[in-house]
C-alpha cells in the first residue's frame, strides 16, 4: 500500500496483512508525463510521484492511501482516482487543528480507514491485531529514538545522510524485519568511531518530502554535521509513541498521529517553532538549515514566520529552495557553505 503522507496510520495497514510503503517519487529530472495533469509550478513531490505512477514504476503497488493534508495531495489523489491507478485508492479526512471535537472526527476517519482496509484485504481487523501492530511500531519508534539519541554525542556515529537512509528503510520495510536489523546495528553504532571532525558546526535540517540523501550530503560536504532533523521522512516520522496502556487501541492510535510534531500544513507554527528550538538546545545545534521543496507552499509561508522566531532567540537560520530530484547541487552547496562559514 503506497503512502503519500505521514498521517495515514500504518498500523492499520499492517494489521490487514498489507505492507505499508511510503512512496518515493521519480528522481529523474523530467516529469513529462505528469505535466499533462500537473503544471510545473505545483508541489514537485506530487508531480514526481505522478510521473512514477504514469511511467509504470509503481505498478507493484496494489493501492494508495493518503489524507487531504493539503490541496496538492488532495488533487494528486483526485488524479490517481481519475486514472484509477493504482487500483485501490483511499483518502482520509484529516483535521488541521486538535481539539476534542476534531479528534472525534479524526477517530471516525481512522475507523473508516480500517473498514476500507478490511474490504481491500478481505480480512477482519480486530483490536488485538491493532494492539499487536502498535507494539511492533512502538518498538521501531523506540529503536529509532535510541539512534537519534546517539546523534547528541560530540561525534555522532552516523552522518545525517546515513540516518535518512535508515529512516527510509523504516518507511518501506516490514517493521519486524527492520526492528531486528536495527537491534543488531545498535551495539555497532555504540562503538563506531566515524572519521569526523568534531569542530564542525552542528546543524538541524528542516524540510518536507526530502527523501534523497544527496541533499543531506551536500550540507555535510559543506563542512557541517547534520545532527538532528525536522523532516517528515526523519524525526517526524517516528516521534511520539502510541499509548497502549488504555483500553481503546483505535483511539490511542489515532491520537498519536495527530499529537506528534506536525507538517507545516497544520496551522500550529508556534508549536512547530518551539519544537525546533527545543531540539536545537537538546542536540547542541548551532544553526538551522531548511531545504524547502520548490512550489510547496506551506513551508514557504512557514519559513517567513520561522525566520522571525529563530532570529528573536538568536538561532542562525538558512532557508533555501530545492527541487525534489537532485538538481542545482552546486548552487545549493555554495549557499550552505557560506552559511557554515558564517556560524563557525
Amino acid at each position, binding site marked *: 500500500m503506497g503512502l503519500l503522507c505521514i498521517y495515514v496510520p500504518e498500523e492499520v495497514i499492517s494489521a490487514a496483512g498489507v505492507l505499508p510503503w511510503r512512496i518515493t517519487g521519480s528522481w529523474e529530472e523530467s516529469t513529462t508525463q505528469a505535466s499533462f495533469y500537473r503544471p510545473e509550478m505545483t508541489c514537485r513531490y506530487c508531480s514526481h510521484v505522478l510521473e512514477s505512477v504514469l511511467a509504470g514504476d509503481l505498478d507493484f503497488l496494489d493501492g494508495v492511501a493518503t489524507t487531504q493534508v493539503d490541496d496538492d495531495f*488532495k*488533487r494528486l489523489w*483526485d488524479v490517481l482516482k481519475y486514472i484509477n491507478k493504482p487500483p485501490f485508492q483511499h483518502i482520509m479526512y484529516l483535521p*488541521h487543528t486538535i481539539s476534542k471535537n476534531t479528534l472525534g472526527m479524526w477517530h471516525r476517519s481512522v475507523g473508516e480507514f480500517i473498514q476500507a482496509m478490511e474490504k481491500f484485504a478481505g480480512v477482519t481487523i480486530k483490536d488485538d491485531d491493532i494492539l499487536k501492530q502498535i507494539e511492533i511500531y512502538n518498538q521501531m519508534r523506540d529503536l529509532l529514538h535510541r539512534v537519534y539519541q546517539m546523534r547528541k554525542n560530540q561525534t555522532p556515529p552516523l552522518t545525517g545522510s546515513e540516518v535518512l537512509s535508515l529512516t527510509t528503510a523504516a518507511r518501506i520495510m516490514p517493521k519486524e524485519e527492520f526492528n531486528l536489523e536495527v537491534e543488531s546495528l545498535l551495539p555497532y553504532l555504540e562503538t563506531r568511531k566515524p572519521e569526523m571532525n568534531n569542530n564542525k558546526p552542528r546543524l538541524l535540517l528542516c524540510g518536507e518530502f526530502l527523501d534523497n540523501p544527496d541533499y543531506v550530503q551536500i550540507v555535510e560536504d559543506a563542512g557541517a554535521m547534520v545532527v538532528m532533523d525536522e523532516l517528515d521522512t526523519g524525526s517526524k516520522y517516528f516521534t511520539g509513541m502510541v499509548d497502549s496502556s488504555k483500553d481503546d487501541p483505535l483511539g490511542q492510535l489515532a491520537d498519536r498521529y495527530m499529537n506528534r510534531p506536525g507538517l507545516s500544513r497544520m496551522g500550529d507554527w508556534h508549536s512547530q517553532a518551539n519544537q525546533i528550538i527545543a531540539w536545537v538546545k537538546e542536540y547542541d545545534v548551532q544553526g538551522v538549515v531548511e531545504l524547502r521543496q520548490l512550489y510547496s507552499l506551506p513551508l514557504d509561508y512557514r519559513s517567513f514566520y520561522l525566520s522571525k522566531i529563530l532570529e528573536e532567540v538568536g538561532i542562525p537560520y538558512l532557508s533555501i529552495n530545492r527541487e525534489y530530484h537532485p538538481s542545482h547541487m552546486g548552487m545549493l552547496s555554495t549557499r550552505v557553505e557560506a552559511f557554515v562559514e558564517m556560524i563557525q
Partner: protein
Amino acid sequence: MSSLNKPGLAYLKNEMARCERRIKKINEKPDPAKPKSNILLYELERDLRREQIEACEKGKPLGITGLGPLTRAMGMTPWDAIMAADRTHGNAATEYFAQVRKLGMPDHTCDRCSILVPMILNGDFPKPNFLFTSNFECLPVFLAHNLLAEYLQIPKFNIDRPFNNYMGERNEEQLQYVTDQIKEMVEYIETTVPDCKYNEERMIELLEYDRQYLQTFQELWKLKAAIPCPLNGRESFREIRLSNMYPDPAKAVKYMRLYVDEVGERVEKGLGAAQPEEKLRLLWSVAGPFYDDPFSWLEQRGVAVPAAEMTVYNGWFSGREPIWGDPWNGRQLSPLEEEARQFDFVWGRLGSDWVNTHLHSCRDLHLDGIIYFLQWGCPVSNNLGRVVAEEAEKQLGIPTLLIEGRMLESSGYNQKDFYAKLGDFIDVCTAWKEKRL
C-alpha cells in the same frame, strides 16, 4: 506605513474616493449601456469602506469569521482583505511583488494571497482584531491568513470540515461537527476580542437578507441561460459579496433585485453582449488577467461569457444546491447551523465536485467551451484543469483552453500572445460547435 500614517486608511480612503467619483459620474452623466443599479452598488461599497475607516479610527473590532453573517452578529466590521487585494492589480501589484521578494516570501503563489501579506504588513490595509482559517478554502488563503495571525499575533480560530459535502452521506453529523466548532469559535471571540458578543437576533435578521439576496441571484442564473446572453463578461466575472458584508444589507437586497430586473429587461428585449451577434458562449474558469479586458475582446468577436466558474457559490446560484434549511429532512436549521452550511463549497471538496460544477454550468447555460485559467500558485484548480478538459470533451463534446497566467501581476503578461491563443480557441470552438450541430 501608509502615507496617511494610519494603518489601513490609505487604501480605504482611496476606495471610498473612487466610489464617490463613480457615483458622481453616474448622477451627472449616466451611461445608458450600463445598469442603472450600479449606483447602489457603489454606494454599498463606499459605505462599507466608510464603516471600516470608522472601525479603525474608533478602535472598534474588525475581523472575519467566515463568509456568513456571523462576523456582524459578533459585533465586528467585516475585514475583506482578500477582495481588497484583488483590486490592486497592474503597477500596484508589481510593487507589492517586489516587496514580497524582498521579504523572502515565495512569488509563485496565488497573486491575491501574495499581495495580501505586504499589504497588511505595510499597513496599507488594516490589521484585523480576529482572523479565521479553514481547510474549506484554498491552501494559499489558509496560509496567508495563518501567517498574518502567527506573525502579527492576531487571535485566530481554525474551522475544519470534511471534504464530502453536506449532500454526501455524512450530512447531519458533518453539519453538527462544523456547528460545534463555530460555537467554540464564538466563545473564543467573546473572551479574546473586546466588544464582541454574539447577537442571535441580529444573526437571524442577516440570514434572512442573505436568503433573499441569494434567491434573487438564482433568478439571474436563469437569465444567464438566455440566448443571446444579456450579461457582459466583466459582469459575469464580478465576485459578489453576500448582503451580510454590507452595513446596510437591506440596500444590498434592493440592489440585487434592481440589477436582476434590469438584466431581465435586457433578455426581454433580446439584447446580448456579444456583437454583432452571439456566435459562441464560453465558461471562464478560476481567474483571469484582471489588469486587461479579454471579455470585451471576445464580445467584439461574437463570443459571450455568461458565467465564471471561480466563485465559491455557483452551487447555490444555480439552484443545484439548497440555499437554506436542512437539505435532507426539511428541518429548519439553527442560525449557527446555517453559518456552518456556508463552510461548504466546491473549493474545499474532492475533485469530482470540482469537475461536475464545471459540467453543470456548461449544461445549464448552453456553453460551447471552457477557458480554464491556470493561475500561478493555485493547486486546487491547476491540478484538475486537464481532468476538466477531458470530461468536458467526453461528456459534452466541448473543448477547453488551458491558459497559464497571473491575475494581478502583469509585468510578464503578453497581450498579443494571450489574445492569439483566445483567437485560435474561438476557431476550435466554432469548428466543434458545427460538428456537434
